Every structure is written in C-alpha cells, then in structure tokens.
C-alpha cells in the first residue's frame, strides 16, 4: 500500500496524494498524524534482525510496516489533543515519548519514504538559517552575508521572490533561475532530502539563496511534478531489512 502522511490542513500534500492516486498508486491512504498517535493498539518490535510496527486504524484496519510500498512523508508534528493526562508534566513527558516513538516507526520504512525521517524533523531535518546558508554556499548557490548575533534574532538577508522544488534528481523552477537548478539539486543531496523547497530572492537583480524547507509547496511544480514524484516513489530502493 501507499501512504501520504500529512496534517489534514496540508493542502499541497492532499493535492499530491490525489495526483498520485490518479496516476495509479493504489491502494493509497492519506493518514493524519493524529490517527497514528491516538491508535487504540500500536505495536513496535525491534531485535537484531529487523524493526517493524503495526498500528490499528479506524474501521478495524491495521497499518503494517511490512505492507507499505512507499510514503509521501509530510509529518511535521505529533498532536497531543487526544491524550487525557493529569498534569502538564505528564503531557510534556508523553509528548517526548510519542515523538520518539513516531520517529522510530518512520525509520522502519525510511528506505521507501520521501522524505526520510530525521531526529531534527520527522519529514527531513530542520536547520537554522546559518546552517542552510553554509550548505547552500557549499552546493554552489549564491548566498548573501547572514548576521549571527546574540543581540537579535537573525533573519534571512534576502526576502524570497521565487522558489524551486527539488524532486529527486529533478528541479522545478522558473526560467530566470533555471541556471541555479543544478545547485538546488546539489543542496537537496547535501541536505539528505529527496524533496526540498529552495527559496530564492533577488538582490541587485542577481538571484540569491533565501532559505530552504523539506516541506515545499508541491503545487508549484504542477502536474509535471506529480509525474516525477510518481516515478520517484516507484523507483525507491528496496526495503532494508
């Protein structure tokens, strides 16, 4: 089975899920993080041979890691609305425990997941502006100076005017920044993400790196992006056991 893991308000993910279903990924389920963490029965097993999970879903269905062919992973937070706990301390503890559990669940199916989970972000690592800037410069993107001071919060120096979306080896972007596509692809590889949004801004009419996100608005690439994402999901490496 195929999955789109996303918040119900993530319109870009829902749009992508519909597009992938149209292209033939079946069965494809859209599952909200709340459904996972409020499951009445979840089982996660690890030993020296393998790691797997089973999560009971509504309507008596069961999500088994072994049955998953591929995942579009847009999971950004672990919701706690359904936890009935006595105190703020308990809630805080449960939040960390559930986040840790979800990360481990996702890691079981990481090889067939776009993006792979990371401890710094379940749908790909979140980085500071300084980290992204250094990574973007390493990838060959033009970057402006970025202040990093203890006196104020650092902001990206250049406001974004356009953005590129990387899907695997392919980069979707506007014509004026087409020459930056290879560097955007390199940035995604350096960041360890199959899907990456790269914001670009214009300073003195020269485009510059202005930020990046592992949760791009997939709609920017339109139907060709879904075609590419479909092929990318179909050709993910075989599951690691």
């Amino acid at each position, binding site marked *: 089975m195929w999955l789109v893991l996303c918040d119900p308000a993530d319109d870009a993910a829902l749009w992508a899920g519909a597009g992938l279903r149209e292209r033939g990924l079946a069965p494809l389920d859209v599952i909200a993080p709340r459904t996972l963490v409020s499951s*009445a*029965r979840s089982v*996660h097993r690890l030993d020296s041979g393998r790691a797997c999970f089973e999560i009971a879903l509504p309507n008596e269905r069961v999500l088994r890691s072994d049955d998953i062919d591929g995942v579009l992973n847009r999971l950004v937070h672990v919701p706690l609305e359904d936890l009935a706990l006595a105190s703020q301390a308990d809630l805080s503890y449960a939040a960390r425990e559930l986040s840790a559990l979800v990360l481990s669940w996702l890691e079981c199916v990481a090889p067939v997941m776009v993006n792979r989970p990371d401890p710094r972000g379940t749908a790909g690592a979140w980085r500071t502006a300084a*980290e992204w800037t250094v990574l973007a410069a390493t990838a060959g993107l033009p970057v402006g100076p970025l202040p*990093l*001071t203890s006196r104020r*919060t650092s902001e990206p120096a250049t406001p974004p005017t356009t953005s590129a979306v990387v899907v695997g080896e392919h980069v979707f972007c506007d014509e004026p920044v087409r020459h930056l596509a290879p560097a955007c692809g390199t940035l995604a590889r350096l960041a360890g993400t199959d899907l990456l949004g790269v914001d670009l801004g214009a300073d003195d009419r020269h485009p510059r790196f202005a930020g990046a996100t592992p949760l791009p608005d997939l709609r920017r690439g339109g139907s060709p992006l879904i075609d590419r994402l479909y092929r990318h999901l179909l050709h993910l490496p075989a599951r690691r056991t």
Partner: protein
Amino acid sequence: MIVICGIASEEPIALVTHELERLGFPYLMLHQRDFLDTSLDLEVVGTGIQGRLVHHGRAVDCRSVTAIYSRLMEWRLLPELQHAGDGERQLCQSWHEALTSWIEIAPGCVMNRAAAMASNQSKPYQAQLIRRAGFTIPETLVTNDPDLVREFRARHQRVIYKSISAVRSIVRFLDDEALERLPLIRGCPVQFQRYVPGVNVRVHVVDGTPIATRVRTDRVDYRYAHRDGGRAELTPWRLPPELADRCAALAARLGLTLAGIDLLLGDDGEVYCFEVNPSPAFSYYEAHTGQPIAHAIARALGRGASTPV
C-alpha cells in the same frame, strides 16, 4: 583557542577546563549564566564564518577557535531567568540561538554538534542505527497493549522497562507490582525489553579512541544501585581490538566526536549495545576508576581537527 560552553562548575566541564589548564591550552569559558556579559557578533559569509565573541570585554576572533566542547543546559531553566523581564529573556534566547547555530557550522573539533546528538532523542530509533553498525540489540517491544506485554514477559521471563525518549528514566524490572499498573500504558505506549544478564561496560569514545569501564552490579540500573543498598563496582577494562574498532566506528557513524556507549557483555556470549549517549557525564566513571577521560578530551580539543575514523 578552545571554547567551552555550559555551566562552568558542572563536573565534566570543570574536569575538562582543569585539564586544559594543566596542559597549557588556551580556552574561553562561555558560561551560560553570564549571557549578559558575553556577546557573539558573527556573520556567515559563503561557507565560512567571521566575527568575534566578546566575553567580559575580552574579544576573541571566531576564526581562531579550533575546538568547542559543549554541554549546554536548557536555557529556560537558568536561575537568572526566574525573575527576568521579557527583554532579558529574549536576550538569553537569542544568545543561545546564535551560540548553537555557530556550534553547528564552526570548523574544527566539536564535541558535539546538535545534528549528531539528535539520534539519542529516540532510543528505538537510535537502536536501529546501532543495529546497522553491527551490534546486537535486545528484543524490544514498544506498545500500548497490556496483553502483548504479558505475552512478551511470558516468553522472556525477565523484562525491563524504560523511557522511549531521551527523558532520563530509571530502568526497572517489570515485576508483579508493575504488572498491576500495566493497563495505564493504554494512555501512552511504553518501551519494554528482554532483560539480558551480563556485565555492563561503558565505553567513552574520545575522538576515535575508546576508553572502557567495566561495571559489576547487583541491580538492573547500576547508576542508581547505591540508592537502595545495591552495589556498583567500576573498574578499567581493556576492550578486545575488534570491539574497540566497532565502538569507534559506531561513534563516527553517528557523527559523535565524544560518545558514551552502553554495552553489555551478555552471559550468552553476545555483546549488546543499549544506547549511545552523545553528552556523557564521564566524570562519574573517572571518579570511580581514575581513568583519564577528561585528559583525553582536553588533548583532543587541543589537537583541533577531529581524527577521521
């Protein structure tokens, strides 16, 4: 120049700074509680970083910094913030944000970067990485189903439970008393593990060099043995070369210049790995064995660049 970040009096930090002084390595202590008297004025330029740190009027060019040892505590818990106003709180936050951002991109030897430390936020997640590095991990069950736990206990006879996340918990046996509370796991899943009898070994890997301590105990969690009259005897131990290499490789694979690896030499002949601590409180082991862990850390910081493994 070496930069130390954290609370100056905290034991591991105090041991490291003492060794740095003894070895004659210059260092700057960025004491979190002194955030009002220290400023960072840095700028990321391309792949590099420039600017200076000013501490009590003393300026240090960040390009002269060759190594960082970081044991930052949660800034929101600093005593200085208990009665602080919004402005001071905001300053404390931006001070820590700038510092942690810099630590992530600073060149040289860093013990440790947050990116590398993050795997420890989830024990079963990290266990999957440990397994891929060639270590045996004990059979583990994380569930909110009490029946499955009873089944797991029936199969393995002796079972322990502990936190899933990095929140520190005392490892305990799933005894009859705990079984009575088992229905509570329906509210939040819990991690259970087959109890493995054997001898605990803590391996501190310092820039590729393992230093091992053997722990003989009559309790399931030796860290708390003395609290209830138990014993924990710590002695230096020489790792077999193959195991030493595997520990160094595991730390390197996780991106950790300093790591505390928790092993167990099982009575069944297997070497199990429970966890890799990315910010080990090595002072406990050093105090009991006299092993020169702080010295090794200071020497590695003095060398500057990390040794590739």
